[in-house]
């Protein structure tokens, strides 16, 4: 399980999980799960499009995720959930069209949707490190404004914080992170990692910084357990990521209820 060909999976997996935990903390805080679900699907369409045209997948992943995030962020004035839903289905439909035009093999489709962590190559580590650091930097810069905006939106606006610019910045960060995570855990399960562990962390502690750290740790632990279980059982890693993320949340809920009963 720790042999050399698995080393890349562990390194990239850990980076991706830490990033998903950090962005997920803000996703749960801001209530933007739907966007966090839609943007990875944009990345999926991008990967399918890149395969059709024959360019590096990363170009398609980043390009389409950014387009999806701009579409969602720009229409914040109207009903944002409708805009998100339409952006999401358009991206998925485009992905389906690209796939059927390029006649991709079914395993490739499944890898994009549900992830293929054991296929991480050494050359893909550098872009992952670069993009992950960029996202981490962006989150660090936006940390205080995002918290302020979530806690007291009106006061934050009065103090000169532009909520639309903040939303845009956050969506772009989500898009970059998604472009990174999709090839590893897949379009559908990037989302599980971004919501389950962070929501659990928020239940366990109320202090923002410790919730952020707990979220990153829980997310990494979920992915580690998933890689190990997938390696042992030969079942897809996406199955474990999805179900374990939900299990982590349910356990946190139960421990919360139990503590309240005792208090």
């Amino acid at each position, binding site marked *: 399980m720790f042999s050399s060909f698995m080393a890349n999976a562990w390194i990239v997996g850990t980076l991706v999980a830490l990033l998903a935990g950090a962005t997920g903390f803000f996703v*749960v805080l801001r*209530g*933007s*799960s*739907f966007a*966090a*679900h839609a943007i990875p699907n944009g990345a999926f369409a991008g990967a399918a499009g890149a395969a059709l045209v024959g360019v590096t997948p990363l170009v398609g992943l980043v390009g389409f995720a950014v387009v999806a995030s701009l579409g969602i962020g720009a229409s914040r004035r109207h*009903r944002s*959930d*409708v805009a*998100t*839903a*339409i952006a*999401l*289905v*358009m991206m*998925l*439909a*485009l992905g*389906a*069209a690209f*796939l*059927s*035009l390029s*006649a991709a093999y*079914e*395993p490739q*489709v*499944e890898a994009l*949707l*549900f*992830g293929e962590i054991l296929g991480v190559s050494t050359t893909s580590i550098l872009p992952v490190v670069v993009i992950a650091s960029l996202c981490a930097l962006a989150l660090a810069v936006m940390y205080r404004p995002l918290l302020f905006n979530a806690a007291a939106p009106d006061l934050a606006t009065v103090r000169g914080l532009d909520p639309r610019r903040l939303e845009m910045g956050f969506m772009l960060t989500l898009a970059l992170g998604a472009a990174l995570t999709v090839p590893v855990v*897949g379009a*559908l*399960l990037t*989302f*599980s990692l971004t*919501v*389950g562990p962070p*929501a659990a962390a928020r239940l366990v502690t109320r202090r923002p910084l410790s919730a952020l750290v707990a979220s990153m740790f829980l997310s990494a632990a979920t992915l580690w357990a998933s890689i190990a279980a997938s390696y042992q059982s030969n*079942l*897809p890693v*996406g*199955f*474990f*990521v*999805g*179900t*374990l*993320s*939900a299990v982590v*949340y349910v356990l946190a*809920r139960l421990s919360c209820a139990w503590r309240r009963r005792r208090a």
Partner: protein
Amino acid sequence: MHWLFEPGIWSNAAVRTGTGVGVVVAAVSALVGLFTVVRSQSFAGHALADVATAGGAGAGLFGFSPLGGFVIGSLLGAGAMEAIGVERVRQRDVATGIVLGGATGLSALFLYLITLNSSRTGSTQSILFGSLFSVSNSSFVLISALSLVVILALGALGRPLLLTSVSPDAARARGVAVRRVALAYTLLMAVTVGLSAIVIGSVLSTALLIGPPAAALRLGRRLGASLVMAVVLGALAVVAGVVASYDSYYWWPSHRALPVSFCVVTMVVVELIVTSALARRAGARDASGRA
């Protein structure tokens, strides 16, 4: 002219059945979806489609009826969302997310096992993206019957649903059981989404649930007119999408037709763009008339 409108299209039985089912499903989705848009429940509506996918894949794996799998999966998902808690908006967001995440994990497992155990290919894509043209005549009858049940139930919910959607506080003051109406509506939405997910795939299901009603609401705010408009726009998108998909066979020398799902979604997006342009022009005319 055949690249624009292939004359033989309606003589094909699969195309006729597929279009018929598509129009029925589009009409039910539009009626139910209008309330989804007004209640800002798009995320739940979409999540139920993905949960239904897990149910459909599970049914495929264990050999149950796929329609049952889709509808039951979706109903279970709606129940789980309610159990986690949907009182406050932000909590609703997380509850939906957790159920959606867990369900996609299950889909991943089921679809993997299906491809492992059978020599058939393409089941992942047909479950996720659907195919209108593979609907059989017998399921057409069943789907139409279930659609009728949904429409009757929606009519029975009627005014309390409208009141709780537009103004929950006023509804509570009038003694409407807001929680119970919300639960009933979510279950109704689950059945609708399960129905449409099996026919046209989870992707298209969201497009038909949200797109036509959102477009109709841009044109006017009166309930009756919006309902009719949403149904017309939904049916139109399906028919136009089917024709485009059928004709796209002639668009490239490689003769690879575009998927129906893609064509229908594109039509829905075109409708949204056109209606929002119309709404903007009407808004500008109003403003200049007042000045």
